[in-house]
């Protein structure tokens, strides 16, 4: 699954959710920020930014992350579903008179 799949709706939110997933997966695997940073060839400070969605992952970093943190297809589909649902919600909020005030 490519990074562009996640970014087609709301890039900012997508990277926030991806960052959350990365952080929770990294912690559950007991991988330190330093090891992950070394793997991506970035600084640990950048990892903090990636995990909080401030610094956007590049395509090759995303691919490396998927393998390094063993992110599975169902996990990625779940976050895609969340991103897509938020996009739909915002659209319905703007366009649908039945959206709760």
């Amino acid at each position, binding site marked *: 699954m490519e990074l562009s799949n996640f970014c087609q709706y709301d890039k900012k939110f997508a990277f926030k959710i991806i960052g959350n997933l990365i952080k929770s997966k990294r912690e559950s695997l007991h991988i330190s920020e330093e090891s992950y940073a070394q793997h991506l060839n970035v600084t640990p400070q950048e990892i903090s930014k990636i995990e909080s969605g401030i610094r956007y992952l590049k395509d090759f970093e995303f691919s490396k992350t998927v393998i390094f943190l063993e992110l599975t297809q169902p996990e990625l*589909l779940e976050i*895609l579903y969340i991103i897509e649902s938020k996009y739909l919600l915002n659209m*319905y909020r703007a366009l649908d008179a039945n959206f709760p005030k």
Partner: protein
Amino acid sequence: MQTFQSKFDKIAFSFINDVGLPLNQAPTALSMKSGDFLNWWSQPNSSKAITTKNIKSLAQYLHINEDSIISGSYDKSLIRRRLFESPLSLPDTYSNNSLSYIRSSSHIIRYITITKGQLFADKFLRDLNISPLLYENLDNKINIKYFIDLLDQLIRYRFNQEDLDIIASLLLLGIKGTPLHLEYLKAKSYYDCYCTFANTINQLESNFEYHADISKTQFHLVTYFHFDKHFFTNEVKSFERLLRYRTLFLGWIPRLSNLEPALPKTKIIKTQNYIQEIHTVDLLDQDINLRGLKLVL
């Protein structure tokens, strides 16, 4: 009277005595070596053995809020049931009128787990005195007060209304691949989807009384929540939060059948005895795909 070296020694000693924590379980519960525990237990006033880390471990072991141990406001009866009956025992406040299946909130816990991690999600549940293991079986039941508290706690944990709206649209995360989801996947139209909803709503919850009327052109759903039969919160905001959640939740039901969401027109009538919700979806409008969305999933 015992004197203690630290307040945590005193708290742990009193707690173990009060709830009757079996001494063979205590070292594990406190994350201590058996020898260290026995030394401390035989002379609890001789050293500072217990720290916040041990209290945290004790709370995790019993699936309860750690602050309640420190403040002494823990539910003794619940703890004893957890120790001697089942770790899945519910607090009394959530076990009366248990008419909701855990599957109706499993997507919320899944969302918290995905976005904040397993440890955070477990702590979130422990703060409600709920064992995370409860979600291992989606057929476990609980009452509506739990659901209201769950939404309130999300706000306390700094999730905002937008997050709650997103959560209302994520039922799929909790039921993906289950027989209920497979039922929804068989539906090829809004009509089929709402028929499935009407036939299976009791697999989610039955706190509300549901009267569904489905024709080829309209889905009409009237629900009643009777105050005399159920817990009712006096917190108007909490209940309004629940009703808003339910409207969005209903609007996203078609997504379970890979259809676009369809927000109902909703009217809420409050009387002294009950709350009535009237939801209407015009199915003809939904069949015309004006928005032309191409959804990934």
